[in-house]
């Protein structure tokens, strides 16, 4: 599958890779590290149209979503968004989502590209009177990310004060004369916006690139998206989250509202004995740990790496791994990379980078 921007990516010199069936830009000609640093210092444009987008509508939409996810949507006002896992009855994570509330009878749910089919099946199965529609093909999604992203966007949203758009707020407005929904959300650890619009209006890409040229805007691919989210301590479904992991074992405890009256997975999560936790680590030698590498302590296997990469900002080898629940920060562990053991240190959290 290709997003509406595929030919544009090729024209920007993208190295294309297959990501869960989508032909996506891994990087452009400047490379992952430069795209990463440009997002940290200036502003980058990402095509994230491969992500699934569902519309959930009807008089019961609010109550329905409240039972579907672990986080509490009663905290939302109209035009606000919320991050939440969605779990099976046993507490295993089906997917992690962002729920955008247009109003109490109309929501947009953004899901991972790799999970679209199973999510849709699960959501429809429990939907009763609520109408669920997969609108992924109709809506394009671009992410404008970086400290200068507001400088770029405010040039095109005449009459809208972006200072009033707080993190996870959304507005429905026009840019370049085209109706779109803009939210102050992202997956990079920087300030930024995600822009939803009719998938035929692909000119928006070129217009944002032109408008952003004086702020050094550059396109960035999935490679930089991955290193950015890793530094920011953000989970990636399929790597750090899956059906055999519950939100209580990873740094998503804050998204599980056990005081909520009822939601799918609540019974299992209330009684779960949590024995392991996902932590950050830094490899103390010059190797990169990768998903699946074993973690050892005194020669005994104690866990595994879920994500690992080079941190372009810190210039270190970092990652996330599971360790026993009683492990402490600064504990030394070993990681088996290609049959050889390398020393690593447990970090105080999964967040390696926090913007100023």
């Amino acid at each position, binding site marked *: 599958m290709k997003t509406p921007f595929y030919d544009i990516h090729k024209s920007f010199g993208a190295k*294309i890779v297959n990501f869960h069936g989508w*032909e996506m830009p*891994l990087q452009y000609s400047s490379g*992952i590290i430069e795209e990463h640093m440009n997002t940290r210092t200036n502003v980058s444009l990402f095509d994230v149209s491969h992500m699934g987008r569902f519309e959930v509508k009807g008089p019961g939409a609010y109550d329905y979503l409240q039972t579907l996810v672990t986080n509490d949507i009663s905290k939302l006002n109209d035009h606000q968004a919320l991050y939440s896992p969605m779990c099976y009855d046993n507490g295993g994570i089906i997917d992690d989502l962002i729920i955008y509330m247009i109003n109490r009878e109309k929501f947009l749910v953004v899901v991972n590209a790799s999970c679209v089919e199973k999510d849709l099946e699960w959501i429809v199965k429990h939907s009763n009177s609520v109408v669920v529609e997969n609108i992924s093909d109709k809506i394009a999604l671009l992410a404008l990310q970086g400290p200068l992203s507001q400088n770029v966007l405010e040039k095109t949203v005449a009459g809208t004060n972006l200072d009033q758009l707080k993190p996870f707020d959304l507005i429905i407005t026009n840019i370049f004369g085209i109706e779109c929904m803009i939210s102050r959300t992202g997956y990079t650890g920087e300030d930024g916006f995600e822009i939803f619009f009719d998938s035929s209006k692909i000119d928006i890409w070129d217009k944002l690139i032109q408008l952003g040229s004086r702020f050094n805007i550059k396109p960035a691919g999935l490679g930089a998206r991955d290193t950015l989210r890793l530094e920011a301590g953000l989970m990636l479904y399929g790597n750090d989250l899956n059906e055999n992991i519950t939100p209580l074992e990873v740094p998503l405890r804050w998204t599980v509202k056990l005081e909520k009256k009822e939601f799918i997975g609540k019974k299992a999560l209330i009684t779960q004995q949590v024995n392991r936790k996902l932590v950050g680590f830094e490899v103390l030698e010059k*190797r*990169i740990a990768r998903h699946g590498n074993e973690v050892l302590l005194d020669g005994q296997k104690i866990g595994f790496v879920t994500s690992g990469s*080079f941190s372009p900002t810190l210039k270190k*080898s970092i990652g996330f791994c599971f360790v026993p629940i009683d492990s402490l920060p600064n504990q030394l562990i070993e990681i088996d*990379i290609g049959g050889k053991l390398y020393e690593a240190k447990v970090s105080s959290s999964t967040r390696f980078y926090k913007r100023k």
Partner: protein
Amino acid sequence: MLMIEGIRLTKEHEWIIIKEGLAVMGISDFAQRQLGDIVSIELPKVGSIFRKMQAMAIIDSVKASSDIYCALSGEVIEVNEELLEHPEWINQSPYDLGWIVKLKPSNIEEEFNSLMTNEQYNEFIGEIENKKEEEG
């Protein structure tokens, strides 16, 4: 298009050039472009002895880890330790600053001719790229 006098290459994209009886080795420009940004390298020890096409070094790029194979049998005489501080030189200058080891070959008469010449290698990577075009 690669045009370096006397260079030979492997199907795993290592290059060698014989200089004063020693084989200088690195990875090709095609290989560094495939790997993307290189962030670290693990070098063999001086004095190590490798058989032809035995793994001798490991390169980590942001996206992947790759074994680097020894293009000829022999003993490691020198390694490019500057790469430990500047792994990006392999991206920036794969045939010069980015050299990886110097080897004293032990069986060069038999092994050298099985390696690819410039022309053969250019044809080889041309085929790889055509195949990717067809798939993509």
